[in-house]
């Protein structure tokens, strides 16, 4: 199993941005009032933020990055690495990270590339940025993570539409003594179709049948450029894999629940996350939720939860577990140290 640690890289700050447009699941009139009640109670998702026309993941990440760089008082020419993690880039090509190099006025010797991951992407992104900082000797790096998922949703699909929201984030990292981060990263491609947008890539190019809507089940109508989610399969996968991964990384690092200040999950749904929390015997107050306000924001959910729920609680030194799981299937957990971390107010644009 891929458990490893990286020393002497610190997370200096995290910023996040969400669209100003709010949609409430109480207004989701495609389903009955009874169904709405059950949906909100079970998933914990009350409101979601929806990107405005023309607003992209890159835009939200750019806002976050500029605010973070300014609050940290970083010099832009010291930033040597820029990684963008998303499944909703501006273009099929070129990579958004390279577009962002120019928009952020970073030097031309910056290493910039994209990583295509969703719910596990923040943890994977941290591991890649930390490894590159170590390998290259660069002093400072930016990790931009986010997704606009709502443009791939079908209003007539109750299994996806009321779950997802949009968001972008920026995380600043630098070389710093006395820091150790643990990672465990895993993948299972046999479940590749559990969360998928089937058409539009090379395997299934856009065709005459792409936009034909099919009714798969009662209340589930979608076409092949919409997001498909097999809720039961993803639920089973998460119940089976996430708690054991967190237990094994804790054991590897020699920590117990009492050594950890907060456990930040990818915000999938309340029922699922609470079941994992109980399996791990973590008390409620250590496991924050932003689900109610923002829904499932894919790769952005961990940094967004930190910014919206933990901003005032991360004073001095804190030890956190970050755990992302989903599309791929892909899942990863990190144990990170936060020391005097800078968290600007959430940007609403």
């Amino acid at each position, binding site marked *: 199993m891929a458990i490893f640690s990286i020393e002497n890289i610190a997370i200096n700050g995290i910023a996040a941005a969400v669209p100003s447009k709010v949609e409430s699941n109480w207004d989701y009139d495609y389903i009955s009032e009874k169904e709405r009640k059950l*949906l909100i109670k*079970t998933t914990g998702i009350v409101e979601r933020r929806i990107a405005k026309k023309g607003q992209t993941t890159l835009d939200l990440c750019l806002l976050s990055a500029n605010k973070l760089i300014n609050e940290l008082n970083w010099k832009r020419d010291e930033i040597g690495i820029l990684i963008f993690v998303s499944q909703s880039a501006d273009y099929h090509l070129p990579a958004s990270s390279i577009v962002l190099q120019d928009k952020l006025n970073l030097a031309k010797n910056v290493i910039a590339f994209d990583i295509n991951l969703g719910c596990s992407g923040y943890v994977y992104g941290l591991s890649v940025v930390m490894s590159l900082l170590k390998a290259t000797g660069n002093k400072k790096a930016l990790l931009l993570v986010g997704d606009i998922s709502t443009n791939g949703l079908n209003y007539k699909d109750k299994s996806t539409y009321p779950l997802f929201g949009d968001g972008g984030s920026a995380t600043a990292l630098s070389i710093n003594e006395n820091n150790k981060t643990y990672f465990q990263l895993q993948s299972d491609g046999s479940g590749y179709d559990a969360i998928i947008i089937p058409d539009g890539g090379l395997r299934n190019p856009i065709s005459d049948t792409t936009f034909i809507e099919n009714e798969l089940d009662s209340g589930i109508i979608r076409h092949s450029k919409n997001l498909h989610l097999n809720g039961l399969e993803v*639920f*089973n996968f998460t*119940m089976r894999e996430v708690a054991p991964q967190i237990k094994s990384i804790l054991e590897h690092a020699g920590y117990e629940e009492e050594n950890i200040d907060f456990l930040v999950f990818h915000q999938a749904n309340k*029922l*699922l996350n609470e079941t994992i929390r109980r*399996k791990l015997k973590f008390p409620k107050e250590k496991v924050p939720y932003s689900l109610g306000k923002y829904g499932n924001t894919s790769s952005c959910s961990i940094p967004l939860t930190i910014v919206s729920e933990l901003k005032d609680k991360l004073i001095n030194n804190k030890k956190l577990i970050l755990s992302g799981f989903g599309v791929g299937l892909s899942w990863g957990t990190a144990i990170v140290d936060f020391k005097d971390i800078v968290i600007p107010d959430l940007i609403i644009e």
Partner: protein
Amino acid sequence: MDTIDIFIRKLREELDDIEDQEFNPETSFRDIEDWSSMHVLILIAFIDTEYDIEVNAEEFSNLSTINDVYELINSKQ
């Protein structure tokens, strides 16, 4: 393991959004009005939390009554 009566009482509390429905060992889930895939998730999560037993969706699809679920939990303990 709980008796079937206690199991049904706990299940009833877990599925409290389902109104006007008597739960007994022979009750078939699919006959419950308003039964949905969301309830399957609630049930799977309940069994995991309460009895520390993992039931996957495929196993559940082979079950029909409350007693079938109770028996499956018993067989896994």
